Every structure is written in C-alpha cells, then in structure tokens.
C-alpha cells in the first residue's frame, strides 16, 4: 500500500478489480461506510467503469476515476456517513507484533486511540486527503477524486499531517 499506480493502461478488468477492490473498500470503510455499503459502492464503481469503457470512454487515470466514483457513492450516503464519524474506535486486537509485552500493547492501543481522535478532529477534506494519500494516490489523483486543485491537495495534506503529528505528540 502506498506505491505509485502499477496498473497498465488499458488494464484488463480482472486486474483492475484485483488491484483496487481492497484499497477502495478500505478507503470507504475508513470514511465510515458499513462493510456491505462499501462493497456495494465498489461494485457500483466497477460497473460504471465497464459502461464507461463500453461507451468508448478513456481509461487514462483509471485509478482516480474509480476512487472518484466510489467516493461520490459514499457522499450520497452522507447522512449515515456523518453519524458514524463520531463513533470512537475500539480496537479489537492488539496492534503490536506477536510476542510484544502487555505494556507495549497498551501503549500501542493508546497511540492508535489518540490517532483515531486526531483523525476525527480533521475536516472532511483533510481526512479524505490523508486517507487517499494513505492508499498511495498522488496529489494529482487525489485532486481528481475530490474535485480540487493539486495545489489545494498539497496544502491540505501538509496541514493535516502537521495536525496529526502535533496531536499524537510524535
């Protein structure tokens, strides 16, 4: 996760699906969608891509295209999406590597709890930029997904990461 796009253009549909299904679903889940909703949105995005290609549409920037469609689908469910942003993160499993002592595990839990609170304190656009950056999208791609200028993405990412670093005492 986090590498530049490695998908050839044009890419066979099965390769696109294999490469992008999980990152797209993960991004949507981090936005607050339920698992079924996230899967529905991903399926819908690939269905639209199929129609887009069948209609002679360009397959340039296919990764940002798919993320944009999925992102817009999440926006359409914004009422439920907004209500879930405030839910605190309860980590079900230890984050430390196997064999870590309990004190380390507790520190990790606390560290990620602070990060979760810091993420929720970001604005919607800041959080979306950070999450898309975490999925390996370039600033230009993030701008295409969110419909904002690349320079705005750079400023937003810079501001968001500084906030996170400050709040997490890194």
């Amino acid at each position, binding site marked *: 996760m986090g590498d530049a796009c490695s998908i050839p253009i044009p890419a066979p549909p099965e390769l696109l699906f294999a490469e992008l299904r999980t990152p797209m679903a993960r991004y949507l889940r981090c936005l607050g969608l*339920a698992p*079924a909703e996230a899967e529905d949105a991903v399926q819908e995005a690939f269905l639209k891509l199929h129609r887009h290609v069948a209609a002679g549409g360009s397959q340039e920037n296919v990764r940002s295209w798919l993320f944009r469609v999925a992102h817009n689908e999440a926006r359409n469910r914004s009422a439920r999406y907004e209500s879930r942003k405030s*839910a605190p993160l309860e980590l079900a499993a230890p984050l430390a590597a196997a064999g870590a002592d309990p004190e380390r595990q507790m520190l990790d839990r606390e560290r990620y709890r602070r990060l979760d609170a810091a993420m929720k304190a970001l604005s919607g656009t800041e959080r979306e930029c950070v999450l898309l950056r*975490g999925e390996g999208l370039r600033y230009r791609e993030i701008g295409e997904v969110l419909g904002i200028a690349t320079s705005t993405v750079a400023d937003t990412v810079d501001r968001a990461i500084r906030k996170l670093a400050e709040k997490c005492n890194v």
Partner: protein
Amino acid sequence: MCEQKNLIAWLDGELDTAEADAVREHVVSCGQCTERVRAFREVSQDVQAYMLVAPAAIPAQRTRLKWAGVAAAAAIAATILVSIFLRPHDQEHKIAGQQIVPNPVREVMPEPPRVAQPVVPRKRRIRHAVPVAPVQSTEYSEGPVIRVAIPADQLFAPGAVPAGVEIFADMALAPDGSIRELRVLP
C-alpha cells in the same frame, strides 16, 4: 523556528527535481527540519497502519441499526397485537401481598364493547325415569299408577344435589297414556 515549507510534499515525492534538491539540502543541515521530517514520516506510517485496523474496528452500525430497527418494530407490533387480543383479566397479575395491578397496556388500549347476550331458559326434560313398580293404591281415582325413580339432576340445577340421588314418584296415567298425576314421595 525554521519555516521551511513543502517538507511533506518532498517526503511524498511531489516536488519537481529542482525543488526536491533544495529541500533535501536544507533538511540535511537543519536539525529542526530533520526532526519534523522524522515526525511526519512516523505519523504517515501510523496512518497506514490505522487504515488497516480501523475498518475492522468500526462496527457495521447501519446493519446493526437496521436489524435493531426491525427488531424494535416487531416488538412494538407484537405488543400491540397482544394487547388487542389478550383478555383483560389475563393481563392482571397478582403480586404476593400487593393489590392487583392493572396492566398498563390495558389502561391505554380501550376494551372492546361487550354485547349483552340474551338469556334463553333451558327447557328441562325428565329423562331416564325408571319404572320401579306398579302401585296398588286407592289414593288415585282411576287408571294405572306406577312408581318411578327419577334421577335428581333431571329435576334440579347441575350440582344442586349430589350425583346418584334419585327421587321416587308415583305416576298416575290417564287412559290415553299421558301422565295424569305425579306425586313425589318423601
């Protein structure tokens, strides 16, 4: 405090070659920026780890709410149906040592109107009168007289007399066979 910008964009490889070279040379020579770059890199790694963990930790609230809503609606519907069809006296529960507490649901739901049923008297027929013996008596003016044993429950309301009790009576018959007189014996 150093005001160097574009540190994060430099970390992300988003700067062109000239800008990236300039930032790299500054970071190497600036302790503050070296520390800030370390912090930005660490929190970026934490965010990536967070994205692997957070989706599993976030509950499927819509699903839960959906089924919670369905369960709540079913519970409300069941309560309404029970209160409509359950008879009032079945809903009062006597708690030991306390007065009968009326069911609050019954207080809310109006009782169905009670329709007065007409009382139809039952026609009693004497059945199973068993002839006991002919009566040789001068008390009766004419015609045959027979003594019969009549089950008491044929003459009285159910449960008024113990079961098995019989009433003896003399039955005087008219010439046409109808009962002319019936004398119950003490």
